[in-house]
Protein backbone atom coordinates (compact mmCIF):
# COMPACT_ATOMS: atom_id res chain seq x y z
CA UNK A 1 0.00 0.00 0.00
CA UNK A 2 1.39 3.45 -0.90
CA UNK A 3 2.14 5.66 2.02
CA UNK A 4 2.59 9.27 3.00
CA UNK A 5 5.63 10.45 4.94
CA UNK A 6 5.10 11.62 8.50
CA UNK A 7 7.87 14.20 8.80
CA UNK A 8 7.51 15.39 12.38
CA UNK A 9 5.34 15.01 15.47
CA UNK A 10 5.17 17.66 18.18
CA UNK A 11 5.84 16.75 21.81
CA UNK A 12 3.16 19.02 23.20
CA UNK A 13 0.33 17.57 25.24
CA UNK A 14 -3.16 17.78 23.76
CA UNK A 15 -6.46 15.97 24.20
CA UNK A 16 -7.37 13.69 21.33
CA UNK A 17 -10.95 14.30 20.23
CA UNK A 18 -12.60 11.54 18.22
CA UNK A 19 -15.14 13.23 15.95
CA UNK A 20 -17.52 10.31 16.50
CA UNK A 21 -17.53 10.91 20.26
CA UNK A 22 -18.21 14.60 19.70
CA UNK A 23 -20.98 13.73 17.24
CA UNK A 24 -22.69 11.52 19.84
CA UNK A 25 -22.51 14.39 22.33
CA UNK A 26 -23.97 16.83 19.84
CA UNK A 27 -26.78 14.39 19.09
CA UNK A 28 -27.63 13.60 22.71
CA UNK A 29 -26.83 16.78 24.64
CA UNK A 30 -27.66 19.72 22.41
CA UNK A 31 -31.35 20.54 22.73
CA UNK A 32 -33.20 21.20 19.48
CA UNK A 33 -36.27 22.61 21.17
CA UNK A 34 -36.80 26.30 21.77
CA UNK A 35 -36.61 26.48 25.55
CA UNK A 36 -35.84 29.43 27.81
CA UNK A 37 -32.17 29.03 28.75
CA UNK A 38 -31.76 32.25 30.68
CA UNK A 39 -30.14 31.76 34.06
CA UNK A 40 -27.62 33.32 36.43
CA UNK A 41 -23.86 33.17 35.96
CA UNK A 42 -23.70 31.25 39.26
CA UNK A 43 -26.14 28.58 38.09
CA UNK A 44 -24.66 28.31 34.60
CA UNK A 45 -21.09 27.94 35.83
CA UNK A 46 -22.18 25.65 38.66
CA UNK A 47 -23.93 23.34 36.21
CA UNK A 48 -21.67 23.55 33.17
CA UNK A 49 -18.09 24.14 34.32
CA UNK A 50 -16.43 21.27 36.20
CA UNK A 51 -12.98 20.93 37.76
CA UNK A 52 -10.53 19.73 35.14
CA UNK A 53 -12.54 21.06 32.21
CA UNK A 54 -10.91 22.48 29.12
CA UNK A 55 -12.18 26.06 28.78
CA UNK A 56 -12.11 28.39 25.77
CA UNK A 57 -13.37 31.95 25.46
CA UNK A 58 -14.01 34.64 22.86
CA UNK A 59 -12.82 37.24 22.15
CA UNK A 60 -10.44 39.08 24.55
CA UNK A 61 -10.18 40.62 28.01
CA UNK A 62 -10.29 44.06 26.44
CA UNK A 63 -13.02 43.53 23.87
CA UNK A 64 -16.31 41.63 24.16
CA UNK A 65 -14.94 39.05 26.57
CA UNK A 66 -17.24 37.10 28.94
CA UNK A 67 -15.37 38.37 31.99
CA UNK A 68 -18.52 37.93 34.06
CA UNK A 69 -18.22 34.18 33.51
CA UNK A 70 -14.49 34.09 34.19
CA UNK A 71 -15.08 35.85 37.51
CA UNK A 72 -17.82 33.36 38.37
CA UNK A 73 -15.48 30.45 37.61
CA UNK A 74 -12.97 32.00 40.00
CA UNK A 75 -15.68 32.65 42.60
CA UNK A 76 -16.77 29.02 42.51
CA UNK A 77 -13.15 27.94 43.06
CA UNK A 78 -12.83 25.68 40.05
CA UNK A 79 -9.56 23.76 39.91
CA UNK A 80 -7.25 22.22 37.32
CA UNK A 81 -8.83 23.92 34.34
CA UNK A 82 -7.05 23.67 31.01
CA UNK A 83 -7.27 27.08 29.44
CA UNK A 84 -7.23 27.91 25.74
CA UNK A 85 -5.27 31.16 25.67
CA UNK A 86 -5.90 31.85 22.02
CA UNK A 87 -6.20 35.61 22.31
CA UNK A 88 -5.99 36.23 25.99
CA UNK A 89 -4.58 38.74 28.41
CA UNK A 90 -6.10 39.40 31.80
CA UNK A 91 -8.37 36.40 32.26
CA UNK A 92 -5.67 33.76 32.05
CA UNK A 93 -3.77 35.66 34.74
CA UNK A 94 -6.84 35.78 36.96
CA UNK A 95 -7.47 32.06 36.57
CA UNK A 96 -3.87 31.21 37.40
CA UNK A 97 -3.69 33.69 40.30
CA UNK A 98 -6.85 32.11 41.70
CA UNK A 99 -5.37 28.62 41.38
CA UNK A 100 -8.15 27.62 39.00
CA UNK A 101 -5.94 26.76 36.04
CA UNK A 102 -3.10 24.26 35.80
CA UNK A 103 -2.63 23.99 32.03
CA UNK A 104 -2.54 26.59 29.31
CA UNK A 105 -2.54 26.18 25.55
CA UNK A 106 -0.50 29.18 24.38
CA UNK A 107 -1.48 31.23 21.98
CA UNK A 108 -0.71 34.33 23.80
CA UNK A 109 -0.41 33.39 27.43
CA UNK A 110 -1.06 36.82 28.79
CA UNK A 111 1.20 39.47 30.19
CA UNK A 112 2.81 39.80 33.58
CA UNK A 113 4.94 38.12 36.17
CA UNK A 114 2.14 36.03 37.62
CA UNK A 115 1.94 33.81 34.57
CA UNK A 116 5.65 33.82 33.83
CA UNK A 117 6.52 32.77 37.36
CA UNK A 118 3.81 30.12 37.47
CA UNK A 119 5.24 28.53 34.34
CA UNK A 120 8.84 28.97 35.48
CA UNK A 121 7.97 27.27 38.78
CA UNK A 122 6.12 24.49 36.97
CA UNK A 123 2.82 25.31 38.68
CA UNK A 124 1.26 25.70 35.28
CA UNK A 125 2.18 23.50 32.34
CA UNK A 126 1.85 24.80 28.82
CA UNK A 127 1.66 23.55 25.27
CA UNK A 128 2.89 25.84 22.52
CA UNK A 129 0.50 26.89 19.78
CA UNK A 130 -0.31 30.20 18.15
CA UNK A 131 -3.42 32.35 18.03
CA UNK A 132 -3.99 31.16 14.49
CA UNK A 133 -3.48 27.46 15.11
CA UNK A 134 -5.62 27.39 18.26
CA UNK A 135 -8.30 29.07 16.21
CA UNK A 136 -7.75 26.53 13.45
CA UNK A 137 -7.94 23.67 15.96
CA UNK A 138 -11.32 24.95 17.11
CA UNK A 139 -12.38 25.29 13.49
CA UNK A 140 -11.53 21.59 13.00
CA UNK A 141 -13.51 20.83 16.14
CA UNK A 142 -16.39 22.88 14.77
CA UNK A 143 -16.27 21.09 11.42
CA UNK A 144 -16.27 17.63 12.96
CA UNK A 145 -12.97 16.65 11.32
CA UNK A 146 -9.95 15.31 13.24
CA UNK A 147 -7.48 17.91 11.95
CA UNK A 148 -6.93 20.84 9.64
CA UNK A 149 -3.83 21.68 7.61
CA UNK A 150 -1.77 24.85 7.94
CA UNK A 151 1.46 26.35 6.64
CA UNK A 152 2.09 28.04 9.97
CA UNK A 153 4.21 26.45 12.74
CA UNK A 154 6.58 24.93 10.17
CA UNK A 155 10.27 25.33 10.99
CA UNK A 156 9.62 26.69 14.47
CA UNK A 157 10.19 25.36 17.99
CA UNK A 158 6.57 26.30 18.59
CA UNK A 159 5.69 23.31 16.42
CA UNK A 160 8.07 21.06 18.33
CA UNK A 161 6.24 21.74 21.60
CA UNK A 162 2.78 21.70 20.08
CA UNK A 163 0.67 18.65 19.26
CA UNK A 164 0.90 19.24 15.51
CA UNK A 165 2.21 16.73 13.00
CA UNK A 166 3.99 17.48 9.75
CA UNK A 167 3.31 15.28 6.74
CA UNK A 168 4.34 15.40 3.12
CA UNK A 169 1.24 16.67 1.34
CA UNK A 170 0.12 13.89 -1.02
CA UNK A 171 -0.99 16.47 -3.59
CA UNK A 172 1.95 18.88 -3.86
CA UNK A 173 4.68 16.84 -2.16
CA UNK A 174 5.48 19.76 0.11
CA UNK A 175 5.56 19.57 3.92
CA UNK A 176 2.35 20.68 5.60
CA UNK A 177 1.40 20.88 9.27
CA UNK A 178 -1.74 19.19 10.61
CA UNK A 179 -3.24 20.52 13.82
CA UNK A 180 -5.57 18.26 15.81
CA UNK A 181 -9.18 19.23 16.35
CA UNK A 182 -9.93 21.03 19.60
CA UNK A 183 -13.32 20.49 21.22
CA UNK A 184 -13.30 22.38 24.51
CA UNK A 185 -15.44 21.10 27.36
CA UNK A 186 -16.65 24.64 27.86
CA UNK A 187 -17.02 27.52 25.43
CA UNK A 188 -17.67 31.01 26.79
CA UNK A 189 -18.87 33.83 24.53
CA UNK A 190 -20.11 37.29 25.35
CA UNK A 191 -22.67 38.63 22.88
CA UNK A 192 -24.16 42.04 22.24
CA UNK A 193 -27.63 40.52 22.07
CA UNK A 194 -29.27 37.14 22.51
CA UNK A 195 -32.81 35.81 22.76
CA UNK A 196 -33.88 33.57 25.64
CA UNK A 197 -33.22 30.45 23.56
CA UNK A 198 -29.60 31.32 22.89
CA UNK A 199 -29.67 32.82 19.41
CA UNK A 200 -26.84 35.29 19.80
CA UNK A 201 -25.55 38.32 17.91
CA UNK A 202 -21.99 39.62 18.10
CA UNK A 203 -21.16 42.83 16.24
CA UNK A 204 -17.82 44.15 15.11
CA UNK A 205 -14.58 42.27 14.43
CA UNK A 206 -14.18 38.88 16.05
CA UNK A 207 -11.90 35.99 16.85
CA UNK A 208 -14.31 33.10 16.33
CA UNK A 209 -17.51 33.22 18.34
CA UNK A 210 -19.34 30.74 16.10
CA UNK A 211 -16.57 28.13 16.02
CA UNK A 212 -16.02 28.51 19.75
CA UNK A 213 -19.69 27.66 20.26
CA UNK A 214 -19.77 24.88 17.64
CA UNK A 215 -16.65 23.13 18.87
CA UNK A 216 -17.43 23.19 22.59
CA UNK A 217 -19.42 20.52 24.41
CA UNK A 218 -20.96 23.01 26.83
CA UNK A 219 -21.64 26.59 25.81
CA UNK A 220 -22.49 29.56 28.01
CA UNK A 221 -23.42 32.80 26.29
CA UNK A 222 -23.41 35.93 28.41
CA UNK A 223 -25.11 38.88 26.80
CA UNK A 224 -25.49 42.57 27.44
CA UNK A 225 -29.04 42.51 26.07
CA UNK A 226 -31.85 39.99 25.84
CA UNK A 227 -33.96 40.58 22.74
CA UNK A 228 -37.22 39.15 21.47
CA UNK A 229 -36.99 35.91 19.51
CA UNK A 230 -39.04 37.65 16.83
CA UNK A 231 -36.19 40.08 16.26
CA UNK A 232 -33.93 37.13 15.43
CA UNK A 233 -36.38 35.88 12.82
CA UNK A 234 -36.66 39.31 11.24
CA UNK A 235 -32.91 39.49 10.52
CA UNK A 236 -31.50 35.95 10.37
CA UNK A 237 -28.32 37.24 8.75
CA UNK A 238 -27.35 38.86 12.05
CA UNK A 239 -27.39 35.60 14.02
CA UNK A 240 -23.83 34.78 15.01
CA UNK A 241 -24.64 31.67 17.07
CA UNK A 242 -27.80 29.57 16.58
CA UNK A 243 -29.66 28.58 19.73
CA UNK A 244 -29.12 24.82 19.47
CA UNK A 245 -25.44 25.26 20.24
CA UNK A 246 -26.10 27.12 23.47
CA UNK A 247 -26.68 25.53 26.89
CA UNK A 248 -27.15 28.65 29.01
CA UNK A 249 -27.88 32.33 28.44
CA UNK A 250 -26.73 34.76 31.13
CA UNK A 251 -28.11 38.30 31.03
CA UNK A 252 -25.06 40.35 31.99
CA UNK A 253 -25.01 44.07 31.22
CA UNK A 254 -21.37 45.15 31.46
CA UNK A 255 -20.51 41.46 31.32
CA UNK A 256 -17.31 42.33 29.44
CA UNK A 257 -16.19 44.74 32.19
CA UNK A 258 -13.43 45.88 32.70
CA UNK A 259 -13.11 45.33 28.96
CA UNK A 260 -15.35 47.13 26.51
CA UNK A 261 -18.26 46.10 24.37
CA UNK A 262 -17.89 47.93 21.04
CA UNK A 263 -20.73 50.37 20.52
CA UNK A 264 -22.00 49.94 24.08
CA UNK A 265 -19.29 50.83 26.62
CA UNK A 266 -15.57 51.49 26.65
CA UNK A 267 -12.71 49.82 28.49
CA UNK A 268 -12.25 50.95 32.11
CA UNK A 269 -8.62 52.04 32.05
CA UNK A 270 -8.60 53.03 35.71
CA UNK A 271 -9.55 49.48 36.53
CA UNK A 272 -6.75 48.05 34.40
CA UNK A 273 -4.30 50.46 36.02
CA UNK A 274 -5.34 49.17 39.44
CA UNK A 275 -5.15 45.60 38.22
CA UNK A 276 -1.74 46.02 36.61
CA UNK A 277 -0.18 47.66 39.63
CA UNK A 278 -1.46 44.93 41.95
CA UNK A 279 -0.29 42.29 39.47
CA UNK A 280 3.18 43.83 39.40
CA UNK A 281 3.26 43.87 43.19
CA UNK A 282 2.20 40.22 43.33
CA UNK A 283 -0.94 41.20 45.20
CA UNK A 284 -3.63 39.84 42.90
CA UNK A 285 -5.17 38.14 45.94
CA UNK A 286 -6.31 41.61 46.98
CA UNK A 287 -7.70 42.23 43.52
CA UNK A 288 -9.57 38.93 43.50
CA UNK A 289 -10.90 39.53 46.96
CA UNK A 290 -12.17 42.98 46.06
CA UNK A 291 -13.75 42.13 42.70
CA UNK A 292 -14.69 38.48 43.07
CA UNK A 293 -14.61 36.76 46.46
CA UNK A 294 -16.05 39.55 48.56
CA UNK A 295 -19.09 39.98 46.33
CA UNK A 296 -21.82 37.42 45.74
CA UNK A 297 -22.44 38.28 42.13
CA UNK A 298 -21.05 40.34 39.28
CA UNK A 299 -24.00 42.70 39.65
CA UNK A 300 -22.96 43.34 43.24
CA UNK A 301 -19.40 43.93 42.06
CA UNK A 302 -20.51 46.43 39.46
CA UNK A 303 -22.72 48.25 41.93
CA UNK A 304 -20.48 48.30 44.99
CA UNK A 305 -16.94 48.18 43.52
CA UNK A 306 -17.41 50.17 40.34
CA UNK A 307 -20.55 52.16 40.83
CA UNK A 308 -23.21 53.56 38.59
CA UNK A 309 -21.40 56.82 37.89
CA UNK A 310 -18.35 55.08 36.52
CA UNK A 311 -20.45 52.67 34.46
CA UNK A 312 -22.35 55.63 33.10
CA UNK A 313 -19.05 57.29 32.16
CA UNK A 314 -17.98 54.14 30.28
CA UNK A 315 -21.19 54.24 28.27
CA UNK A 316 -20.70 57.94 27.70
CA UNK A 317 -17.29 57.24 26.16
CA UNK A 318 -18.77 54.73 23.68
CA UNK A 319 -19.50 57.38 21.08
CA UNK A 320 -18.69 55.23 18.04
CA UNK A 321 -21.81 53.25 17.23
CA UNK A 322 -21.65 52.72 13.46
CA UNK A 323 -21.68 49.06 12.58
CA UNK A 324 -22.16 47.75 16.12
CA UNK A 325 -25.87 47.16 16.05
CA UNK A 326 -28.69 45.72 13.94
Amino acid at each position, binding site marked *: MPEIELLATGEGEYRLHDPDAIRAWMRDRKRRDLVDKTTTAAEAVGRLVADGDYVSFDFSSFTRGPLVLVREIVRQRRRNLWYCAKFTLMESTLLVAAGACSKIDVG*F*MGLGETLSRAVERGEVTVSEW*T*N*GTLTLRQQAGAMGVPFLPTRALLGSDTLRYSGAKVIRDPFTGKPIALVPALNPDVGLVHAHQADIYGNARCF*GPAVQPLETAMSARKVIVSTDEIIEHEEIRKAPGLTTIPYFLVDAVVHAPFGAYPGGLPGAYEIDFEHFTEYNSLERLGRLDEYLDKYVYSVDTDDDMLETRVGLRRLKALRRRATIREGYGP
Partner: protein
Amino acid sequence: MTAPPGFTEAEFMIAQCARLLEDQKTAFIGFGMPQVAAILAQRTHAPQLIQVFEFGAVGPMPLTPFVRNTMGGPANCYRSIAWTNMSTIFAQAQLGLIDYGVLGATQIDLFGNINSTMLGDDWRRPKRRFPGSGGANEVASYCWRTIVVMMHEPRRFVPRVDFITSPGYLDGTPEARERAGLPAGTGPWRVVTSQALFGFDEASHELTLLGALEGRTVDQVVAEMGLTPRVAAHVERLAPPSPRELEILRDQIDPARALIGRTAKS
Protein backbone atom coordinates in the same frame (compact mmCIF):
# COMPACT_ATOMS: atom_id res chain seq x y z
CA MET B 1 22.91 55.37 24.87
CA THR B 2 20.74 58.42 25.31
CA ALA B 3 18.63 59.65 22.48
CA PRO B 4 20.01 62.41 20.28
CA PRO B 5 18.52 65.71 21.33
CA GLY B 6 15.02 66.55 20.14
CA PHE B 7 13.45 63.13 19.88
CA THR B 8 13.26 59.82 21.69
CA GLU B 9 14.53 56.44 20.57
CA ALA B 10 10.95 55.24 20.27
CA GLU B 11 10.04 58.19 18.08
CA PHE B 12 12.89 57.38 15.71
CA MET B 13 12.01 53.69 15.62
CA ILE B 14 8.38 54.36 14.89
CA ALA B 15 9.16 56.95 12.22
CA GLN B 16 11.71 54.67 10.57
CA CYS B 17 9.25 51.76 10.55
CA ALA B 18 6.52 53.99 9.13
CA ARG B 19 8.80 55.06 6.27
CA LEU B 20 9.15 51.41 5.23
CA LEU B 21 5.41 50.93 4.84
CA GLU B 22 4.36 51.63 1.25
CA ASP B 23 1.09 53.22 0.33
CA GLN B 24 -1.57 51.01 -1.28
CA LYS B 25 -0.23 47.85 0.32
CA THR B 26 -1.73 45.49 2.88
CA ALA B 27 0.02 45.19 6.24
CA PHE B 28 -0.61 42.78 9.10
CA ILE B 29 -0.15 44.97 12.16
CA GLY B 30 0.97 43.64 15.53
CA PHE B 31 0.21 45.02 18.96
CA GLY B 32 1.76 48.32 20.19
CA MET B 33 4.55 50.05 18.29
CA PRO B 34 3.53 48.56 14.92
CA GLN B 35 0.09 50.12 15.36
CA VAL B 36 1.56 53.56 15.97
CA ALA B 37 3.93 53.18 13.02
CA ALA B 38 1.05 52.20 10.72
CA ILE B 39 -1.05 55.18 11.81
CA LEU B 40 1.91 57.50 11.25
CA ALA B 41 2.42 56.01 7.77
CA GLN B 42 -1.27 56.57 6.97
CA ARG B 43 -0.98 60.21 8.03
CA THR B 44 2.19 60.91 6.12
CA HIS B 45 2.91 59.12 2.84
CA ALA B 46 0.56 56.11 2.92
CA PRO B 47 -3.09 57.20 3.25
CA GLN B 48 -4.18 53.98 1.55
CA LEU B 49 -2.12 51.62 3.69
CA ILE B 50 -4.53 48.77 4.43
CA GLN B 51 -4.01 47.69 8.01
CA VAL B 52 -5.26 44.24 8.99
CA PHE B 53 -5.46 42.86 12.51
CA GLU B 54 -5.62 39.28 13.67
CA PHE B 55 -9.18 39.71 14.94
CA GLY B 56 -10.32 40.46 11.43
CA ALA B 57 -10.53 44.23 11.06
CA VAL B 58 -9.47 45.21 7.54
CA GLY B 59 -8.53 48.69 6.36
CA PRO B 60 -9.43 50.86 9.36
CA MET B 61 -8.55 54.54 9.64
CA PRO B 62 -7.89 54.58 13.39
CA LEU B 63 -9.05 57.51 15.45
CA THR B 64 -6.36 59.02 17.64
CA PRO B 65 -5.06 59.50 20.26
CA PHE B 66 -3.83 55.95 20.18
CA VAL B 67 -4.60 54.06 23.39
CA ARG B 68 -2.88 50.79 24.29
CA ASN B 69 -4.94 47.63 24.66
CA THR B 70 -7.81 48.99 22.61
CA MET B 71 -6.72 47.23 19.44
CA GLY B 72 -10.10 45.52 19.02
CA GLY B 73 -12.07 48.58 20.01
CA PRO B 74 -14.09 51.07 17.96
CA ALA B 75 -11.41 53.78 17.76
CA ASN B 76 -8.75 51.50 16.34
CA CYS B 77 -11.23 49.74 14.02
CA TYR B 78 -12.83 53.00 12.93
CA ARG B 79 -14.01 53.22 9.31
CA SER B 80 -12.81 49.72 8.42
CA ILE B 81 -13.52 48.25 5.02
CA ALA B 82 -14.49 44.88 6.46
CA TRP B 83 -14.87 43.23 9.84
CA THR B 84 -14.30 39.54 9.64
CA ASN B 85 -12.60 37.13 12.06
CA MET B 86 -9.30 35.45 12.87
CA SER B 87 -9.82 32.38 10.67
CA THR B 88 -10.63 34.52 7.65
CA ILE B 89 -7.83 37.03 8.07
CA PHE B 90 -5.16 34.38 8.62
CA ALA B 91 -6.56 32.55 5.59
CA GLN B 92 -6.08 35.71 3.54
CA ALA B 93 -2.54 36.04 4.84
CA GLN B 94 -1.79 32.38 4.08
CA LEU B 95 -3.23 32.95 0.61
CA GLY B 96 -0.63 35.62 -0.06
CA LEU B 97 -2.81 38.71 0.13
CA ILE B 98 -0.89 40.48 2.88
CA ASP B 99 2.25 42.32 1.78
CA TYR B 100 3.82 43.37 5.08
CA GLY B 101 3.83 41.95 8.56
CA VAL B 102 4.93 44.29 11.34
CA LEU B 103 5.92 42.72 14.64
CA GLY B 104 7.62 43.49 17.89
CA ALA B 105 10.06 40.92 19.30
CA THR B 106 11.65 40.03 22.61
CA GLN B 107 14.72 38.48 21.02
CA ILE B 108 16.00 38.00 17.49
CA ASP B 109 18.98 36.14 16.07
CA LEU B 110 21.44 36.34 13.20
CA PHE B 111 18.99 34.63 10.83
CA GLY B 112 15.99 36.69 11.90
CA ASN B 113 14.37 33.99 13.98
CA ILE B 114 12.13 35.50 16.63
CA ASN B 115 11.82 34.37 20.23
CA SER B 116 8.88 35.52 22.30
CA THR B 117 8.47 32.26 24.24
CA MET B 118 11.27 31.59 26.73
CA LEU B 119 14.91 31.94 27.75
CA GLY B 120 17.02 28.98 28.83
CA ASP B 121 18.19 25.72 27.34
CA ASP B 122 15.32 23.55 28.62
CA TRP B 123 11.82 24.44 27.45
CA ARG B 124 10.36 22.46 30.35
CA ARG B 125 12.29 24.55 32.88
CA PRO B 126 12.53 28.02 31.36
CA LYS B 127 14.80 30.53 33.04
CA ARG B 128 12.40 33.16 31.86
CA ARG B 129 8.96 32.68 30.35
CA PHE B 130 7.34 35.11 27.90
CA PRO B 131 3.78 35.20 26.54
CA GLY B 132 4.46 33.15 23.41
CA SER B 133 3.62 33.54 19.75
CA GLY B 134 0.25 35.14 19.77
CA GLY B 135 -0.30 35.65 16.06
CA ALA B 136 3.37 36.37 15.35
CA ASN B 137 4.15 32.90 14.04
CA GLU B 138 1.43 33.24 11.39
CA VAL B 139 2.49 36.75 10.47
CA ALA B 140 6.16 35.72 10.14
CA SER B 141 5.16 32.61 8.17
CA TYR B 142 2.58 34.09 5.78
CA CYS B 143 3.29 37.75 5.04
CA TRP B 144 5.54 38.57 2.11
CA ARG B 145 7.79 40.96 3.98
CA THR B 146 8.12 40.83 7.75
CA ILE B 147 9.34 43.95 9.55
CA VAL B 148 10.50 43.56 13.15
CA VAL B 149 10.53 46.63 15.38
CA MET B 150 12.57 46.50 18.59
CA MET B 151 14.66 48.56 20.95
CA HIS B 152 18.36 48.45 20.23
CA GLU B 153 19.42 46.52 23.34
CA PRO B 154 22.34 44.06 23.46
CA ARG B 155 20.32 41.27 25.12
CA ARG B 156 17.72 41.38 22.34
CA PHE B 157 20.25 40.38 19.66
CA VAL B 158 21.71 36.90 20.03
CA PRO B 159 23.61 34.61 17.66
CA ARG B 160 20.92 31.94 18.04
CA VAL B 161 17.60 32.37 19.86
CA ASP B 162 16.87 29.89 22.64
CA PHE B 163 13.49 29.19 21.07
CA ILE B 164 12.21 29.86 17.57
CA THR B 165 8.72 31.15 18.27
CA SER B 166 8.29 32.63 14.80
CA PRO B 167 10.42 31.57 11.86
CA GLY B 168 13.11 33.72 10.31
CA TYR B 169 15.54 32.07 7.91
CA LEU B 170 15.90 29.19 10.40
CA ASP B 171 19.48 27.86 10.09
CA GLY B 172 20.19 30.28 7.26
CA THR B 173 20.87 27.59 4.66
CA PRO B 174 19.48 28.21 1.17
CA GLU B 175 15.73 27.53 0.88
CA ALA B 176 15.56 26.58 4.57
CA ARG B 177 12.08 28.09 4.87
CA GLU B 178 10.84 26.40 1.70
CA ARG B 179 12.25 23.04 2.82
CA ALA B 180 10.35 23.41 6.07
CA GLY B 181 7.18 23.93 4.02
CA LEU B 182 6.81 27.64 4.68
CA PRO B 183 5.40 29.77 1.85
CA ALA B 184 8.03 30.47 -0.81
CA GLY B 185 9.60 33.90 -1.04
CA THR B 186 8.70 35.05 2.45
CA GLY B 187 10.79 35.87 5.50
CA PRO B 188 12.09 38.68 7.64
CA TRP B 189 12.79 41.71 5.46
CA ARG B 190 13.79 44.53 7.78
CA VAL B 191 14.62 44.97 11.45
CA VAL B 192 14.08 48.47 12.74
CA THR B 193 15.74 49.41 16.01
CA SER B 194 16.10 52.57 18.04
CA GLN B 195 19.47 53.13 16.38
CA ALA B 196 19.57 51.34 13.07
CA LEU B 197 17.99 49.55 10.16
CA PHE B 198 18.87 45.99 9.19
CA GLY B 199 18.07 43.69 6.30
CA PHE B 200 19.17 40.17 5.51
CA ASP B 201 21.98 39.12 3.17
CA GLU B 202 20.54 37.42 0.07
CA ALA B 203 22.98 34.53 0.12
CA SER B 204 23.72 33.91 3.79
CA HIS B 205 20.42 35.24 5.16
CA GLU B 206 22.41 36.91 7.91
CA LEU B 207 21.28 40.09 9.62
CA THR B 208 22.90 42.97 7.76
CA LEU B 209 23.28 46.56 8.87
CA LEU B 210 21.78 48.77 6.15
CA GLY B 211 21.57 52.09 7.94
CA ALA B 212 22.44 53.92 11.13
CA LEU B 213 20.70 56.83 12.77
CA GLU B 214 22.43 60.07 11.89
CA GLY B 215 25.18 60.60 14.46
CA ARG B 216 25.65 56.92 15.23
CA THR B 217 28.68 55.13 13.83
CA VAL B 218 28.64 51.52 12.64
CA ASP B 219 30.90 50.60 15.54
CA GLN B 220 28.61 52.22 18.06
CA VAL B 221 25.60 50.38 16.62
CA VAL B 222 27.32 47.00 16.53
CA ALA B 223 28.83 47.49 19.98
CA GLU B 224 25.36 47.49 21.50
CA MET B 225 24.33 44.16 20.02
CA GLY B 226 24.78 40.64 21.36
CA LEU B 227 25.72 39.39 17.89
CA THR B 228 27.90 40.55 15.04
CA PRO B 229 25.79 41.49 12.04
CA ARG B 230 27.05 41.82 8.49
CA VAL B 231 27.55 45.40 7.40
CA ALA B 232 26.35 46.57 3.98
CA ALA B 233 28.93 48.02 1.59
CA HIS B 234 27.15 51.33 1.88
CA VAL B 235 25.55 52.04 5.25
CA GLU B 236 22.77 54.55 4.84
CA ARG B 237 22.50 57.57 7.10
CA LEU B 238 19.02 57.45 8.65
CA ALA B 239 17.36 60.79 9.17
CA PRO B 240 15.88 61.54 12.58
CA PRO B 241 12.11 61.93 12.77
CA SER B 242 11.09 65.00 10.79
CA PRO B 243 9.28 67.87 12.48
CA ARG B 244 6.11 66.73 10.73
CA GLU B 245 6.50 63.13 11.88
CA LEU B 246 7.12 64.32 15.44
CA GLU B 247 4.18 66.67 15.33
CA ILE B 248 1.82 63.91 14.19
CA LEU B 249 3.24 61.46 16.75
CA ARG B 250 3.12 63.92 19.65
CA ASP B 251 0.04 65.99 18.91
CA GLN B 252 -2.22 63.47 17.18
CA ILE B 253 -1.19 59.90 17.87
CA ASP B 254 0.38 59.63 21.32
CA PRO B 255 0.05 62.84 23.31
CA ALA B 256 0.20 60.79 26.52
CA ARG B 257 3.62 59.57 25.32
CA ALA B 258 2.69 56.02 26.33
CA LEU B 259 4.83 54.56 23.56
CA ILE B 260 6.81 57.39 22.05
CA GLY B 261 8.47 58.25 25.34
CA ARG B 262 10.30 54.96 25.60
CA THR B 263 14.05 54.54 25.69
CA ALA B 264 16.31 51.52 25.49
CA LYS B 265 18.01 49.74 28.42
CA SER B 266 21.71 49.08 27.97
